[in-house]
């Protein structure tokens, strides 16, 4: 017997979760953009899209967040620390690629020094993922050895049933079980066969790419210049990437009082690595694109044994000049043959 969550019970689930002190968050389409937001009722959810426009990262690593308020006095500086508020959250309706991305970034935020902003939110959030039964031409999770029904990073995986009836429930973690225990009574127990996961074709050869990237001779390859010629150096691909984690600190305020904030930053920006002296180690757009690809598919896996990409395809989907990871790795696959 497997557990089934029926779609028309979703409202009751949300009510129970709310009653248990959870905030419920899901993909919401509003104002011409779909992103994760707190919801009260199931009908606010937009579960039909292939992927929300904005990523799950927003919930764990917002684009800007205050860290300290400072007040400077003659004898002392008072700092007030802002950490994320402690509260239990359930994210309902993430996609496997987005959920995987969170697990991919865990080791980065945790090596040696732990980033409390990330882990506080991670530890308090249950991710309920819905397996994909549809994909578009930009999806590429399978190329990254993930799948439309990957469980990486999820606490609960839901597999859609036929006729939009509901989902087959798979518990994946302790946190997931706890969240499920609150709605146990609302679940059906029956034998059901879920819809097959979406068919996502493999688009490039990850191993071959990694090998090519690891070869020092290819670092200065003309390929990088050719592939990035039309790159305009905006931050769309990095800011819409669920795994990109680069950030910056900015102080806002005046001489005596203000706030230090942690803001997203992007390796595509020319100023990202610029020294005060004017020297810039990555002074061309091709060097910056190379860094992005190298980081995701060579350096990061070298350190954490995970690719810093979960194959959501947003970089290609949203790129203003139709670039993206897919094309680059496809080209590298060709070069490595």
């Amino acid at each position, binding site marked *: 017997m497997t557990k089934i969550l029926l779609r028309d019970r979703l409202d009751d689930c949300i009510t129970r979760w709310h009653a248990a002190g959870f905030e419920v968050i899901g993909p919401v389409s509003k104002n011409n953009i779909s992103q994760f937001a707190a919801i009260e009722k199931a009908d606010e959810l937009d579960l039909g899209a292939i992927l929300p426009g904005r990523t799950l990262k*927003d*919930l764990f690593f*917002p684009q800007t*967040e*205050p860290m300290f*308020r400072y007040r400077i006095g003659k004898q002392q500086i008072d700092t007030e620390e*802002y*950490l*994320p*508020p402690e509260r239990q959250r359930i994210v309902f309706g993430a996609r496997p690629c987005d959920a995987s991305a969170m697990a991919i970034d865990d080791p980065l935020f945790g090596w040696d020094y732990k980033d409390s902003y990330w882990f506080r*939110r991670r530890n308090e959030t249950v991710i309920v993922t819905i397996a994909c039964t549809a994909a578009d031409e930009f999806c590429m999770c399978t190329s990254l050895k993930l799948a439309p029904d990957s469980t990486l990073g999820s606490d609960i995986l839901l597999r859609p049933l036929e006729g939009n009836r509901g989902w087959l429930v798979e518990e994946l973690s302790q946190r997931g079980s706890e969240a499920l225990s609150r709605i146990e009574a609302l679940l059906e127990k029956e034998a059901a066969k879920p819809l097959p996961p979406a068919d996502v074709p493999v688009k490039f050869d990850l191993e071959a790419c990694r090998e090519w990237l690891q070869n020092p001779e290819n670092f200065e390859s003309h390929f990088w210049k050719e592939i990035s010629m039309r790159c305009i150096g905006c931050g769309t691909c990095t800011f819409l990437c669920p795994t990109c984690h680069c950030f910056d600190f900015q102080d*806002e305020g005046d001489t005596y009082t203000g*706030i230090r904030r942690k803001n997203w930053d992007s390796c595509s920006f020319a100023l990202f690595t610029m020294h005060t002296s004017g020297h810039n180690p990555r002074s061309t757009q091709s060097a910056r694109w190379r860094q992005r690809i190298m980081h995701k598919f060579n350096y990061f896996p070298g350190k954490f044994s995970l690719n810093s990409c979960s194959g959501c395809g947003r970089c290609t989907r949203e790129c203003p000049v139709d670039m993206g990871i897919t094309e680059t790795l496809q080209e590298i696959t060709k070069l490595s043959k």
Partner: protein
Amino acid sequence: MSEPFEPKIVAFVCTYCTYAGADLAGTSRLKYPPNIRMVRLPCTGRISPMFILKALQKGADGVLVSGCHPGDCHFTQGNYHARRRWTVFRALLNFTGIPLERIRFSWISAAEGVKFAELISSLTEDIRKLGPFDQYKAMIHETEAPVSL
């Protein structure tokens, strides 16, 4: 409950005309409300729209930009350039919903102490009636709020 609202108004003025006009208002002992904070610049041509945005960012309820009458510019053309810039920037502010009553422009010469005093009085009164620029202040306040996610 609380003290009556006193608007904060930032004035960006040209040193050759409006600042001198304000000086004249002072030496002539003309009365005008103390709500104005004046920033003196060499010419209206130097007054970048950035200044206006910065004033709003720092919580101003109103902004006055003032300089020499056309033809009187110390640098001959600065105020003509400024005039075009204001026309465009004003339209932009209007289109994005910043009430034009809060952002004002004037020509005040060194001899117009009376005009200066009167303008400041009427401007202060107008903005007092409008009340604090709550919509903008809410946006400023949001930046100071602790984490919401």
